[in-house]
């Protein structure tokens, strides 16, 4: 399976949880920590992310950057 990961911009995440419901792998959760605005920002909870970008597409604050293993490296 293709492996991916995400980086959430902690400062602008508003904890709306839309990414959590959009994730088909259920690999997102709210952090127990707060950001400076007082929101529990989203974070990865396990390593099952496939880099499908669903979370980033529904994020209203464009806070998510998605990385994915490149296919070329997989082949070699």
């Amino acid at each position, binding site marked *: 399976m293709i*492996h*991916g*990961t995400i*980086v959430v911009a902690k*400062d*602008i995440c*508003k*904890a*709306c*949880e*839309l990414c*959590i*419901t*959009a994730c088909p792998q259920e690999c997102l959760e709210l952090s127990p920590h707060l950001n400076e605005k007082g*929101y529990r920002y989203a974070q990865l909870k396990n*390593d099952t992310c496939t*880099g499908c*970008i*669903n979370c*980033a*597409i*529904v*994020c*209203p*604050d*464009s*806070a*998510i*950057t*998605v*990385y*994915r*293993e*490149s296919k070329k*490296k997989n082949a070699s």
Partner: protein
Amino acid sequence: MENVVTKNEMEIVYKKPKTITDTPMHYCPGCGHGVVHKILMEVIDELGIQDQTIGIAPVGCAVFAYDYMNIDMQEAAHGRASAVATGVRRVLPDKYVFSYQGDGDLAAIGTGETIHTVNRGENILMLFINNGIYGMTGGQMAPTSLIGMKTTTSPYGRDAAQVGNPIKITELIAQLPGAYYVTRQAVHTTQAVRKLKKAIETSFKYQKEKKGTCFIEVVSNCPSGWKMTPVEANVWLEKNMFPVYPLGDIKSPK
């Protein structure tokens, strides 16, 4: 842990569009405005028309849209975004012009401007964000509020006998000869967002060909105004808004 690939070895597959500024958005958590802004800017990035696009910001929650979109923007008086867009497009006929309005702006105070702009068939894209409530002023009843919907000005639910039925402005303007492409989309799921992106792309294409007015209604949410969490709001939207405002193309060119 040999299989774990570090981030440095991966490629970026999705990031914030470069036409969206770094200003943190003032919208409430889960608001559909943010998604629409992002998708609109993504399309502009992909078409490479950042320097040729002029947006008209409304009065309403999206009043600061010009802070978030790194393109030329003009603020309009309440409800008059389509009228301002008409002027901009007529003076600069080679530019891409869009107006961005909410339901209180486009369907209430600006109904006259909206209908006449479409009737003249101005070559602009009109984006209409419909969440059935006045979000900015604190959740008052809008012309698009559903029957029985509780708002601060209809605490017992909207009564059709007293204040009328929800206005389906998109169906209304689809009857006019100037309307070329009229569609209704949503932003509650990934699939819906992808469809919206396609609709915006198509509209910019028609605008270049000077075909007539393109009108996209986006059925959106208002978690704060509806007094729900964003996730609950999207479920409520699907259950209650879509029967009244069904998604899909209302008028598409043959």
